[in-house]
């Protein structure tokens, strides 16, 4: 690639041919505002339809202003990014966008995080001279995600996420001009689409057009009901991101403060989903070894590779797209659901409370968990194992509205017995973590030898598809890892075609794994934030004395007292599930 020389705001710089003006300016430390443009730097994720025109700049010698996000630099270009003409154009563009946008900021779920609101503030928009018709559309509420397309600015970020990154294909721009909206096929509601509720559309939406279902009020209600014992479980990725909502730098671990906050919110027992993650390893790891041994013994009927099943967005994805392979993923429930099942049986017995009087709340980095806990197979006589799932963002709001000074809280520990966990449970929160945790336990069970090296660094990283061979004392285990459903689809197609050489594959629906989940504080396209959260997760693992799931004393105890052994009938009843063909549910027509 040739280097070319150009001038931006009087600075002379050299960039590679093909570089956009936006990128060249960024390299020179010049910030050009954007709205529709979105980029997750390390993950090859970029949205640049060049549609909103907020990023226009003046190129000397060019008649009209150029959109910086899609205009490539040419030799000798002289660019002004912030002169009067440019600023006036940006203001006009903003006013036009806002003229077809509700003025609901005071009551909008996205208020404070909205990129349109932020720009209107930044450019001092105080009046909208363009009065006219506003486009209106019905609101669509699903178990996880709310679509309010009146607030949509047609940036198409969600469409890019849903189609290019996730290959889910639930959303597309439909209709034309003023009537255009982003919607599922035939403008059906999300529940009738192949939507997996991964929430990646929500995590990139610049406005309040896509938000999560907020369960805070229901949770507040049960917390003030004296007849209920309200238990909370917190997923591993939450502790690595919650602090961001309180102004702490990304990657700050706030485990202890989070526990303290939950206790002050009125939860009677503050437990850890990491405990259930350890339990998942016991069940999933055993299932892997089981299938592996049968395979090695020449059993041709056994399904390999085994696929992890912790991620509800991923479960929805294969139920919709790979209904012919429902027997390939592990039957182990997700940690959220294992926790619920154990809390309302084992723990309920221990404290002598009827399951009807126990309410299990989960704090998750995820929106698909809201759907998962409502699935019929996770209910006993209509009573769900997990009653409510709230996102990291909802918990942050909940803490804020409850007048708790988060920064001033002491560090507190989880309650027992369901709060005890190992480092293996913690790393579930990032891509590669589940399979690393499984390797730590499966290795020791399979070989009967202690693991010399705990950290399987070959399984770590942020590349979309990774593979590694792990040596189980002579047995070479081929491990695949995919995060982002588009990457998962590639590995799944290989399995379907019989070309896959993996023994086990870990799949997470969201780019980065749970740390990049649809319910996490908004990263606004800064992939550094995801890296820092991942580092925090590994730091938490390193700080733990126990780092292998099977060494968790409370896990040993629950098998001794209650479950028997991994894969036992009792374990199957409570900790395993089955999957459904959902491909036909998508079709709306009758």
């Amino acid at each position, binding site marked *: 690639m040739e280097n070319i020389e150009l001038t931006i705001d009087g600075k002379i710089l050299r960039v590679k041919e093909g570089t956009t003006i936006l990128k060249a300016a960024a390299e020179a430390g010049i910030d050009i505002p954007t709205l529709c443009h979105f980029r997750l730097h390390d993950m090859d994720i970029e949205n640049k339809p060049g549609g909103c025109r907020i990023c226009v700049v003046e190129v000397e010698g060019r008649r009209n202003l150029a959109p910086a996000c899609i205009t490539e630099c040419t030799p000798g270009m002289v660019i002004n990014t912030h002169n009067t003409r440019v600023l006036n154009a940006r203001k006009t563009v903003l006013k036009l966008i806002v003229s077809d946008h509700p003025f609901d900021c005071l009551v909008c779920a996205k208020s404070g995080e909205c990129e349109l609101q932020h720009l209107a503030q930044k450019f001092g928009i105080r009046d909208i001279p363009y009065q006219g018709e506003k486009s209106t559309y019905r609101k669509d509420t699903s178990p996880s995600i709310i679509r309010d397309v009146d607030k949509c600015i047609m940036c198409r970020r969600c469409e890019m996420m849903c*189609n290019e990154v996730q290959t*889910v*294909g*639930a*959303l*597309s*721009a*439909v*209709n*034309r001009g003023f009537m255009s909206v982003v*919607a*599922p*096929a*035939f*403008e059906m509601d999300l529940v009738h*689409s*192949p939507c997996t509720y991964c929430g990646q559309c929500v995590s990139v939406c610049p406005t309040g057009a896509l938000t999560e279902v907020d369960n805070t009020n229901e949770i507040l209600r049960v917390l003030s009901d004296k007849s209920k014992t309200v238990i909370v479980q917190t997923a591993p990725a939450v502790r690595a991101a919650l602090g961001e909502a309180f102004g702490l730098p990304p990657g700050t671990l706030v485990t202890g403060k989070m526990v303290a906050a939950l206790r002050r919110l009125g939860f009677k027992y503050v437990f850890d989903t990491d405990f259930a993650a350890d339990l998942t390893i*016991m069940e999933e790891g*055993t*299932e892997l*070894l*089981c*299938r592996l041994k*049968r395979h090695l013994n020449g059993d*041709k*009927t*056994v*399904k390999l590779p085994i696929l992890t099943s912790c991620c509800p967005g991923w479960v929805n994805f294969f139920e919709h797209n*790979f*209904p*012919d*392979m429902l*027997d*390939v993923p592990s*039957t182990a429930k997700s940690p959220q659901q294992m926790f619920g099942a154990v809390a309302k049986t084992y723990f309920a017995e221990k404290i002598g409370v009827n399951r009807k009087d126990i309410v299990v709340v989960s704090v998750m980095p995820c929106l698909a968990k809201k759907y998962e806990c409502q699935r019929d197979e996770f209910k006993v006589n209509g009573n769900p194992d997990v009653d409510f799932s709230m996102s990291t963002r909802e918990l942050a709001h909940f803490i804020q509205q409850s007048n708790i000074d988060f920064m001033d809280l002491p560090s507190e520990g989880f309650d027992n017995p369901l709060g005890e966990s190992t480092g293996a449970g913690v790393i579930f929160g990032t891509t590669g973590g589940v399979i690393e945790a499984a390797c730590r*336990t499966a290795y020791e*069970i399979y070989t009967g030898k202690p693991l010399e090296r705990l950290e399987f660094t070959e399984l770590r990283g942020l590349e979309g598809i990774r593979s590694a061979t792990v040596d189980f004392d002579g047995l070479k285990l081929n491990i695949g890892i995919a995060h982002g459903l588009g990457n998962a689809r590639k590995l799944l197609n290989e*399995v*379907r075609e*019989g070309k896959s050489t993996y023994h086990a594959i870990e799949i997470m629906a969201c780019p980065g794994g749970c740390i990049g989940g649809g319910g996490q504080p908004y990263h606004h396209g800064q992939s550094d934030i995801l890296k820092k959260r991942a580092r925090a997760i590994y730091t938490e693992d390193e700080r733990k004395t126990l780092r292998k799931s*099977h060494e968790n004393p409370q896990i*040993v105890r629950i*098998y*001794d007292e209650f479950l028997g*052994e*991994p*894969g*036992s*009938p009792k374990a*199957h009843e409570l900790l*395993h599930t*089955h999957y459904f063909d959902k*491909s*036909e549910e*998508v*079709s*709306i*027509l*009758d």
Partner: protein
Amino acid sequence: MASENSSCENNTAIPVMAPDKEKVNIKIRLSDEKISMINEICARFDNDPGELINVLHQTQDTFGYLPAEVQELIAHNLRVSAAHVYGVVTFYSYFSMLPKGDYPISICMGTACYVRGAEKVLDEFKKELNIKVGETTEDGRFSINCLRCVGACGLAPVVMVGEKVFGRVSPDKVRDILDEYK
């Protein structure tokens, strides 16, 4: 615990290897004949997602319109999402999800026809048939659409019913045209 003899036998649900490809299908209520016609059209374009618009054109030429079932089948064949196909169908005004009438009426809205009063002619058709542009009468006989220029500007305003061209149409002639088909 976690011993070697963990009872994987309890897991009776580990069935056969190689997934059955035939099971991958989408539910549709089209007749077998229609399905094979659409499959043939898609095959004519090598099931290439880049040929979506051409596939839609030929399918609409064959069936007269593009109902949701048809779009789902095309999406499946071309390996694109149904939402994407629907997005294209709703973007271009030529594509229709409603069946046209036995006698599809097209009113030219090209410049020449427009300045000579095509809009008043259109209003008259809408009034007479009590339907809007893009709709079909309840008895399925007439539908109204607009088009741009049929290349007979000397006859403006022009109306087509099926393949037949009517020239110099004025609102008071609309009744007579409709009567020809009653």
